[in-house]
Structures are given as C-alpha cells and as structure tokens.
C-alpha cells in the first residue's frame, strides 16, 4: 500500500537580494510520518518552511496540501491565513506568543470572532483540555504566558496548531531550548500525535535526534535539496557528509599543560532581573593555556555569568580577579584594560554598532589608545590602516572597511569581533556562543582561533549550548543549572546531559 500524500512542495525558490535562500526545492510528506528537514545553519530550512506557512512569498514554485478528504489542492501562497485554513501549523524557534495574556487566549486568538460581545471561553477550554488529554501536552491555561517555562511555552505553541485542526505540524528546531530529557518527552508526544493521524516536519541540525525520531530525512545545503532517504537507510557519517558537502572538518587539539590562573571568580552571586541573569555562589578558576567549557540549557544563568566576566554586571557578592588582581566595581572598560577579550553572545546587538564603519568597529574598545587618537581627536589614517591590516589577517570580507558594519554577513561580523579581541592578545577570552548561527566552515575557523589563543597562553571561557562544540574544544567542562556551576566529572555526553537537566549526576 502506498502511503497517502498530504503535502507536496514543488520547485520552491526564494532570493533575498543577492542571497539565494532556496533554489528549486521539492518535498513530499506522507500521512502519519515524521519527516526531518536537516541542514546546517543558513541552509535554508527555515526559509522553506516560512514559505510553506505564508510568511514569505516564494519567487517560484508551488505547494499542494491535502484537504479533509485527502485530495491535494493548491495552496495560495503568501497568506498565513490560507496555510492555517489548509491545516498547516507551525511552531517557530522563537515562540510567537504574547506574554501578557494567558495560554487559553493565545491558543484561541484569531479563531474566534473579534467583534463578538461575549466569548465562549468554556467551549474553547473544553476543546483544549480534550486535545491535552489525547496528546499529553500539559500546560497551565490561566497563567500569563510570560510566567510559563520554556517547555510549557512550546507545548502551548503546539496546542495552538492542534486547536486549529492542524493535520500537518512543522516544528522549527524544537529541541534547541530543551534538555535532552525534555526533548525525549516532546518526541514521545509527537509519536502519540502521529499515531492519531498527524504528519510532522521537524527542522533540525542535530544528527542524533534526527536519526532517533524521524521516518524519513531530507537534507538541505546552500538552499538546495541534496539528498533524501528513509531513516533506516541513513547513518551519521552519510548525512553529515551530505550536510556539509565534504567530511566534517575536525579541529585538531593538542594536549598542553595549563598555566597559572588568569580568572578567579569566588562565591560570585548576582540577583538578576530574571533567572537568566541570576547566579548563586559561583566559583570558577580559569588557567592560562586552557579552555573551560560551560555547558547548560539556555536560560540557566549563562548570560549572568557572561555579564559578570564582560564587566556588564557588578556582582552582589563575591570577588572577580583577573591575573590575580581583584577588579573592584567591574566595568567593561576595566575588564578590557585588565586583559579580558569578550566575544558577545548576540553579535549584532552587542558586538557591533551596525551603522558605524567596519574600521570604527575594529577600534571601538581602544579609544584611549594613543595609536588611535591624540588629544581627543581620532587619527583617521591610523584607524583605516589598522582596519585594512586586520581585515586581511582575519579574512574579514565585505564591501570594504569604510562601509557600515551591518552590511557584513554574520560570519564576517564574527571575524571582525575576533580580530578586535585577538589583536590585543588578551589574557582571558570570554567566548559566549561564538559559533551560533555560523556555517560549519566559519564555526571551524572560530574554533581554530580559540585553540591558537590557548596555545599562545590565554585562558578561555567557552559558553555554548552546543554540547558537541564544548566536548570538542574544552579542557575542563562545567555545567550551569539554575545559576549554579558544577564541574563535570566526566566528558561523557549522557552524564553531562543529565547534569544539564538537573537530574543528579
């Protein structure tokens, strides 16, 4: 028996200016199957799904969706409303939830008449509770969504789609914000829903979960579909090769003996505005010539830790010392002066001033330097010479060092920041999610630079949500959970996963 087709994408293409996001992509989804859409960051997975859902209008191609009777009908493109009506539900990586209203309102938003004088909340609630009972997607309905946990918010997102009778569910990187254990729960929920007749596309770049939970795999690279296979025929090496086009570049790492401590945090506590920023009695020593990896689920205090080391937050208690000297009232300027180089988590928001030139962004941390200014006036020739030199040395490509930095691609912005940081030969480097959103080549280059800095004698704090990255680069690994830091006794992936989840290790 041939499985029933519920969705076909035919020849979808999309350009953003000079960038080709999708090039002639075709896909088929069958009823009751889980299709994994696999690819590197920037391979065009999300763009493809945004076209399916009507957020983007494709430049070419068409989409057909099975209606309630199972007959394929063309889908009008560029209209989220039409996609919703056709039974397509999408759960974005960044949740599309209003935090000031509760889950019930978020779920029913848009499916009830706007102008009715009374809302039939009782009926809506009964229906949602029915869906929860069938799928196991538990979430509190009456609390403002702002107070829910990440996992609960994701369940609300899925409930939103199911409430609208979605027959096809698209999940964009659903596990990025979950612990391995939460992810397992999610996948068993998905299995229950699929058994109920739902068809699922899930987007991922994690080979492991794709192999474990999908029925079929489609691989995208540079906007093109480069392969498709049943999961039973796939293995890790095969699909990794498809994703990157060649064998994954492995970063070579030598063993070197660590030196003297360059960073000491002693009993540092931060009472942040949110849990993301709070730290409880964190002590951490980072030595010269070592990379310390900080693993953890997003939102467990990573940004609090990073802000302390970057000088953006003054701890409420505890001391921060760089190279043995305590830093009183840390500010970003004092940390830079003490020899700390910082690679920020959000490179567009904190790393560069997009409207200013590449050259200016390269000197923004050293405005007191007499090479850069004299008597308060900028030495413009020195600034552009410096920029030209760094652009060559660090391979920063773009429309020139005089152009606004926002015109650079993500990878080149990161190279700009690396150039700025490494050029000062920092004693300590804070690398917060340094490869997030970069393609594998650019990510490997970042890893290489970090190892070079380590060989040169720097100590490095590597904060990453990508456990593989930490396992590949770090000499010692800590796990951050609820604002507390614990050294991992092993480099065993499973063990660290349990620690990240807060299950005793």
């Amino acid at each position, binding site marked *: 028996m041939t499985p029933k087709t519920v969705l076909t994408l035919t020849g979808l293409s999309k350009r953003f200016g000079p960038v080709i996001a999708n090039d002639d992509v075709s896909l088929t989804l069958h009823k009751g199957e889980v299709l994994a859409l696999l690819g590197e960051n920037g391979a065009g997975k999300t763009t493809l799904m945004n076209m399916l859902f009507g957020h983007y209008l494709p430049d070419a191609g068409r989409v057909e969706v099975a209606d309630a009777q199972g007959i394929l009908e063309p889908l009008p493109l560029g209209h989220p409303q039409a996609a919703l*009506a056709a039974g397509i539900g999408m759960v974005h990586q960044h949740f599309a939830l209003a*935090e000031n209203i509760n889950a019930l309102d978020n779920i029913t938003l848009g499916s009830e008449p706007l102008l009715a004088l009374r809302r039939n909340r009782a009926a809506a609630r009964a229906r949602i509770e029915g869906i929860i009972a069938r799928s196991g997607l538990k979430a509190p309905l009456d609390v403002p969504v702002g107070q829910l946990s990440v996992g609960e918010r994701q369940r609300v997102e899925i409930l939103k789609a199911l409430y609208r009778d979605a027959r096809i569910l698209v999940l964009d990187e659903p596990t990025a914000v979950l612990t391995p254990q939460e992810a397992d729960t999610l996948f068993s929920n998905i299995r229950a829903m699929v058994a109920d007749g739902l068809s699922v596309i899930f987007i991922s770049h994690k080979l492991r979960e794709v192999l474990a939970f999908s029925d079929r795999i489609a691989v995208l690279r540079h906007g093109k579909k480069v392969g498709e296979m049943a999961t039973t025929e796939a293995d890790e090496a095969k699909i990794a090769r498809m994703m990157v086009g060649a064998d994954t570049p492995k970063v070579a790492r030598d063993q070197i003996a660590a030196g003297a401590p360059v960073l000491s945090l002693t009993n540092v506590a931060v009472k942040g505005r949110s849990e993301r920023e709070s730290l409880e009695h964190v002590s951490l020593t980072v030595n010269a010539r070592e990379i310390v990896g900080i693993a953890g689920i997003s939102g467990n205090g990573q940004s609090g830790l990073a802000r302390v080391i970057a000088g953006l937050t003054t701890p409420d208690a505890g001391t921060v010392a760089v190279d043995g000297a305590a830093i009183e009232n840390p500010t970003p300027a004092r940390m830079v002066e003490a020899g700390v180089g910082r690679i920020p988590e959000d490179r567009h928001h904190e790393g560069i001033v997009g409207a200013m030139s590449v050259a200016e962004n390269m000197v923004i941390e050293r405005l007191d330097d007499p090479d850069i200014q004299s008597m308060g006036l900028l030495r413009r020739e020195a600034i552009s010479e410096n920029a030209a030199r760094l652009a060559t040395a660090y391979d920063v490509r773009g429309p020139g060092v005089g152009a606004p930095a926002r015109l650079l691609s993500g990878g080149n912005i990161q190279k700009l920041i690396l150039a700025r940081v490494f050029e000062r030969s920092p004693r300590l480097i804070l690398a917060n999610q340094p490869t997030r959103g970069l393609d594998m080549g650019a990510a490997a280059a970042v890893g290489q630079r970090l190892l070079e800095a380590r060989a040169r004698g720097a100590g490095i704090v590597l904060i990453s949500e990508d456990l593989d990255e930490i396992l590949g680069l770090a000499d010692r690994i800590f796990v951050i959970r609820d604002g507390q830091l614990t050294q991992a006794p092993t480099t065993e992936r499973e063990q660290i996963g349990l620690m990240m989840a807060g299950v005793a290790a």
Partner: protein
Amino acid sequence: MTDLLNILISESFWAASLRIATPLIFGVLGALLCERAGVLNLGIEGIFVVGAMCGWMAVWLGAGLWGGVLVAACAGAIFGLLHAILTVPLGLSQHVSGLGITLFATSASYFTYRTALPNVSSPPRIEPFQALDIPVLSDLPFLGPVLFQQTALTWLALLMVLLVWYVLQRTGLGVAIKAVGDNPDSVDAQGLSVYGLRMGAIVAGSALMALGGAFLTMSAFDAFFFGMVNGRGWVCIALVIFAGWQPGKALFGAVLFGAFDALQVRLQTEMGALVPGQIFLMAPYILSIIALVIAARSVDYPRALLTPWFKGQR
C-alpha cells in the same frame, strides 16, 4: 488646615475635579489604546487642538452639538490614520512622526480658524453642552451635584472608560490588541493582521483624543482659543504610564489629576496673597513628572511599544 478640609468635602470641588478630568479621561483612554497596540502617539497634543477646533467650528456652522462631537471624532481619526500609516506599515520613528502630527494638526487647525475668521479679536461663541439635569438623581446629596450635574460629554467619557475596559478585558478584539502590543508575531502567526489591529487602535484612540479637545470648546468653554490645549495631551501621555495601561487606573489618575488642578485653583484664591499664583499653575505639570518618575520603574511597558513590525521579517 480646616480650609483644606472644607474644600475636600465640598460638592463643588469634586464636581469641578470630574469636569477638569473629562478631557484627560478621553486623552488617556486614547493614548492607552494606541500604546496597548504598541504605538506611541505623540500626535495627541495636536489632535486635541483639531478636536477642539473642528467640534466647535462644526457647531458654529450649524451642525448641532452632537454633530460637532462626530465631526471632532472624525477629524481626530483622520490625523490618527496619518500617524498610523507613517508608524505602522512604514515603521517610521514613532517619536518624530507623533511630534510631526502635533505640529501639523495644530498649524492646520490654526490656519483653518484664521482663514475662516480673519479679523476677529474675540471668537464667536456657541451654545455649549449644558449640565444634564436628571430628576431625582441630581437631587441626591453629594453624589447629585458631583455626578449628575455634569454635561453629556463627561458621561460619554465615563462610558468610554467602561467600553474600553470591556473591549480589552472581555472581547476577542481586546485580546488581539493586547497581544499585538506585546508580540506582533503572536497575532500574525494566528492569521490576524498586525497592521490592521495597530492602525485600527491608533485611529480609534485618536478619535477619543479629539473628543477630549472637543470637550474644551463645547463643554468647558464655548469658543476656540489659541493655546487652549496647553499641554493637556502631554499630561495624558504621562498619566497613561502612571495608570499602567489599565482603563480603571487611567480614570483614577485623570480624576486625581483633576482634583489636584481644582485644588490649586481654590488654594490660589485663598492663598493668592502669600504665594505667586504661578506656583499653583505649575503644580499639575510637576505632579505629572512626579507620577511618571514614581511609576516608570514599576510598570510593565507593552513589550512591543515603539518597535515597528514588518511583514515577512521575523
């Protein structure tokens, strides 16, 4: 001290407070609607002027009082639509656009007034709204004079508080407006129009603001003067923050402000010999700043306020 107490328990004082609060109630509600949907409307000061001028002129031209109210609301809505186009689909700076609307609306009103009445030194008067005299209720002790001897526009303002509260709290439209001011993607993902909701809220909010202006020329006074709005719009922008974007608290804030203003007028007459009168005139503006400073840290701004949203850019 007993003087102050006498003022605070007098019926006429509270009647005056509610009267002074009326234009502010309209204004705060209007600003609240716009900001709940995520758009700051600094056009408010100019829209007050437009409402005052158009409402009054319509009546002067023979439209009747309610006709004037309608004209004022429509004029406010038109300027609101302009602000909506500039700030929502075009996503321009809400600060600058709003100030531009205020300058444009004010100069357009003044020009129209001057062109219609080139050579008058004192503007022609109209027969304004009279206090509604409701049998029985008006004769109630205290509440009678305070509540039931106000003009119809004050009643309309109180009704609007209820209406805005009901819409925001009890209808799907209200949920959508709150959601679009918190996270436009949440609305877009559910197939509702972010642009439509935001523009609609701005247009409706601006119409309310214009009614605040209309109250000035059609109820508080009986003619149009240059400079008569005198910063009331800006006060509303401060009050809406003080009110934490809640209609009930907005009413409370406006009446509190009205009471303070009424109090300064009375204190001025009693203590005028001791203190320069301007101290009292300044007080309401200073009070607004104090209210803003107190509220600023503790309130939750609508998360998407001031952030433009473009279709297809997530």
